[in-house]
């Protein structure tokens, strides 16, 4: 009951902020009702440029929030985020390599491949997904190795513009997506949220620890494997469309837990909604605050998320 009220609030808020996102842009501010009308009349700017971008921002935030929630369960660590298992390192290396070798192509697919590859390596080094401490250590080790490799590519890359576009990509940016580009991320997100709701009670028991979860009837290795695959897929897809957008995947699950409580049946939809709202707002500001220049959206989520997280920690301490 409480969850439904929260989700309704989030949807309404998301709709209002989405319309605000449509109304604002570097080419000028329109009144929200005018923007809503333009959306349905097929206006070039609102319907073809801003609407897909706002929708993609929501999908990106939601994906990161769900991936972060799952990583926090898998690693039994409140500080885990979607990138923690070396995924950011893998994505960065993939992206800068792609930018250096094929400057004409978008770095997204290579970044996704890099993130997924890093996850496979980390899982191999940790000998499976069952030991949180080993996964985390392997993630840190592999991540730092990949980060240094990224630096090496940036230093050795021939063209100057690699550095600039790489910097932009590393701090997250949504670019100018077309509607068809939203298909895969949207379907993946919907499937993963569905998986999360079906597995909600098992994920709850997994948070109690592997032994207790097994004693309470959970197939622990199977659930861990599934959760890792889901989290990595979501993260890889998110880096492919938006680069590295920090803090959303860390903060959204915490806010979700404060609002909806720890059980995943309520936590997943609420955290996903919070993540979507956060990135929609951050991206609207990123597009408009310094117009005509655009700021990487990851800079804004970190700038807002950091202090917010500190406030949350202070509050939690009582």
């Amino acid at each position, binding site marked *: 009951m409480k969850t439904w009220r929260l989700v309704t609030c989030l949807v309404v808020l998301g709709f209002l902020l989405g319309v605000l996102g449509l109304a604002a842009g570097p080419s000028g501010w329109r009144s929200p009702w005018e923007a809503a009308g333009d959306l349905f009349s097929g206006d070039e700017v609102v319907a073809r440029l801003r609407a897909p971008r706002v929708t993609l921002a929501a999908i990106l935030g939601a994906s990161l929030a769900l991936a972060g929630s799952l990583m926090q369960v898998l690693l039994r660590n409140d500080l885990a985020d979607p990138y923690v298992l070396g995924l950011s390192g893998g994505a960065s290396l993939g992206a800068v390599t792609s930018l250096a070798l094929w400057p004409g192509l978008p770095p997204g697919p290579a970044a996704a491949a890099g993130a997924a590859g890093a996850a496979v390596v980390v899982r191999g080094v940790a000998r499976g997904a069952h030991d949180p401490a080993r996964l985390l250590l392997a993630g840190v080790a592999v991540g730092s190795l990949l980060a240094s490799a990224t630096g090496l590519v940036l230093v050795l890359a021939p063209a100057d513009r690699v550095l600039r576009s790489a910097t932009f990509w590393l701090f997250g940016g949504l670019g100018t997506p077309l509607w068809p580009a939203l298909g895969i991320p949207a379907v993946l997100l919907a499937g993963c949220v569905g998986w999360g709701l079906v597995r909600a009670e098992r994920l709850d028991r997994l*948070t*109690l620890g592997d*032994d207790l979860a*097994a*004693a309470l*009837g959970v197939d622990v290795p199977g659930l861990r494997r599934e959760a890792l695959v889901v989290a990595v897929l979501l993260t890889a897809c998110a880096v492919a469309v938006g680069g590295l957008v920090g803090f959303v995947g860390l903060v959204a699950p915490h806010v979700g837990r404060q609002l909806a409580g720890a059980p995943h049946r309520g936590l997943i939809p609420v955290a996903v909604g919070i993540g979507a709202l956060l990135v929609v707002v951050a991206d609207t500001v990123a597009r408009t605050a310094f117009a005509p220049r655009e700021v990487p959206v990851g800079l804004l989520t970190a700038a807002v998320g950091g202090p917010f997280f500190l406030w949350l920690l202070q509050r939690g301490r009582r």
Partner: protein
Amino acid sequence: MTPVAPAALTMNRSVATRPVIEAGSLAVGRGGRAVLEGVDLAVMAGERLGIVGRNGSGKTTLLRVLAGLDRPLAGEVRWGGGRLPRGPSRPSTLGVLFQGEVPSHFTVRELVTLGLGLDGPPTAADERLVDAAIARFGLAHLVGRACATLSGGEQQRAALARALVASPGALLLDEPTTHLDPVHRAALLGELDRLRGSVAVVLATHDLECAATCDRVALLGAGRIAALGPPTEALVPDVLAGALGVRVRRIHDPAGGPPLLRVLGLVGPPAGAEKVPVA
């Protein structure tokens, strides 16, 4: 879905000769190395069995195998005459309470609900089971509190309610009295007394006083069960000296309680005695 294991429930009501857990020629260990071998053990419905041994004697390892968490190196374990079920009927067959369960973000009510092992939202019947367990362990005033904010004793009561909400036929506890002050220790033993006759309790402990409250005690020593019997036979100075290597004096309780066991020291000559020259 209401988790009811018919086998477990009928066992509760049957005569105390039906085993809830049976272990035959069991070998248990870690990393392929056996810690305990040749374990034959039958836990009867409603009885309280203590597993006593030194640190490293294999108490926890044996308990984990009995809980179905680890596979034995050899032999087999049967629960109610068969395999341990997966899914929601598992917690209604076997309840477990481990040392140092991490206090969670869940509220007491949510934690107790998780004890049912459901794979979906609870039904009205499930909610009634949860209410009953909460009332039984005096947690009604704490239902909305996060487990992490409870005191140690309250956490243990919540964990007991979580372990017993599905009415399992057996409850396994690992070192339940360690780190408990005398008040909470007495409270826990009181709770366990209320289970006597209905739920088989297996507790691994190195607390001899706690072991003395059991119906039977299995003493682990030298890689096997060195003694198995009622405390009057197993917890006596000779047997304890053989199995644990400690000298113990039994002190009679004039009020009729179980005898107190006072550990006097280690068996054998004092350290360094063998170096004394003969000449």
